[in-house]
């Protein structure tokens, strides 16, 4: 395995994965950087890694979910602090509204439907490729995709109509 061809080459896919979870470009970039540095530190294990992208994607997903969890547990601004007087100073994701929409819709899907939509609608993989990556049959992929998009449609229509 080589750092440039087997790790750095996947930067955009990992970035989009992190972005689809966090909805924030700067946070997503930090996650990908941390994951790649961790992969570099663990270079003695590279010989045992059969699928570098799957290995890196799992690390990225875990790191992004950890970051999201920590962000949800951030304490409220202290009374009298600058943030308390001006809530807009509290750190908020600085992604565009467009990415925020699909990020939110995907984040509300249960596994493995979330990963399935990421692989199909964001990365453009075929049913066969998705089946291979998620250890499913192609028929299962079709059924799950139908289920995922039905949920996305319901949620999207509610958001459009009621702003939910």
């Amino acid at each position, binding site marked *: 395995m080589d750092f440039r061809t087997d790790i*750095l080459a996947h930067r955009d896919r990992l*970035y989009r994965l992190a972005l689809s979870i966090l909805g924030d470009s700067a946070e997503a970039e930090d996650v990908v950087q941390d994951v790649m540095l961790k992969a570099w530190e663990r270079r003695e294990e590279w010989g045992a890694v059969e699928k570098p992208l799957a290995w890196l994607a799992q690390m990225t997903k875990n790191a992004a979910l950890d970051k999201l969890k920590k962000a949800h547990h951030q304490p409220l601004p202290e009374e009298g602090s600058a943030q308390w007087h001006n809530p807009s100073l509290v750190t908020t994701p600085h992604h565009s509204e467009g990415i925020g929409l699909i990020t939110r819709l995907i984040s509300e899907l249960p596994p493995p439907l979330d990963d399935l939509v990421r692989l199909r609608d964001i990365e453009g993989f075929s049913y066969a490729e998705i089946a291979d990556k998620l250890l499913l049959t192609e028929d299962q992929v079709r*059924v799950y995709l*139908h289920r995922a998009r039905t949920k996305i449609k319901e949620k999207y229509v509610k958001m*459009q109509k009621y702003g939910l």
Partner: protein
Amino acid sequence: MDYKYIEQLIDSYFEGTTSLEEEHILREFFAQENVPEHLLEWQSLFRSEKELANAHLDERFDERLLSLTGEAHVRALPIPLRTRLRPLLRVAAFIAFAVVIGTAVEQSVSPQGEAPANQMAVQDELDADETTALDIRSAELQNDSVSIN
């Protein structure tokens, strides 16, 4: 303009039966500005998907990572052929030196070493011949002296 084809594609999309190419057509259709009003409700969804699908990091990210891992320096210094072959050249030089020394030692030892056995044999032969000749000559001289007396 008839948008039946697009409407069918939208239905197929939510049923999960569209091909990758058909999904691409939908995203390109909604990326344009002149989307008919009755289809506008789906525009944000397909634009959002397209925006995320096109998100990427730039070269500065690579440079930062390579500098943090030190890979940039390793890659920036190509190893010249002479340096790569240096160990091999050292071994070759040692072998050549050993051969030269070995040959020189062999040549300097040979004249007093193996050769004497042969040379001594020849010398013995010559000595033996000389003795015989002397004996014959001595006998001849003795005969001559008897005949004189």
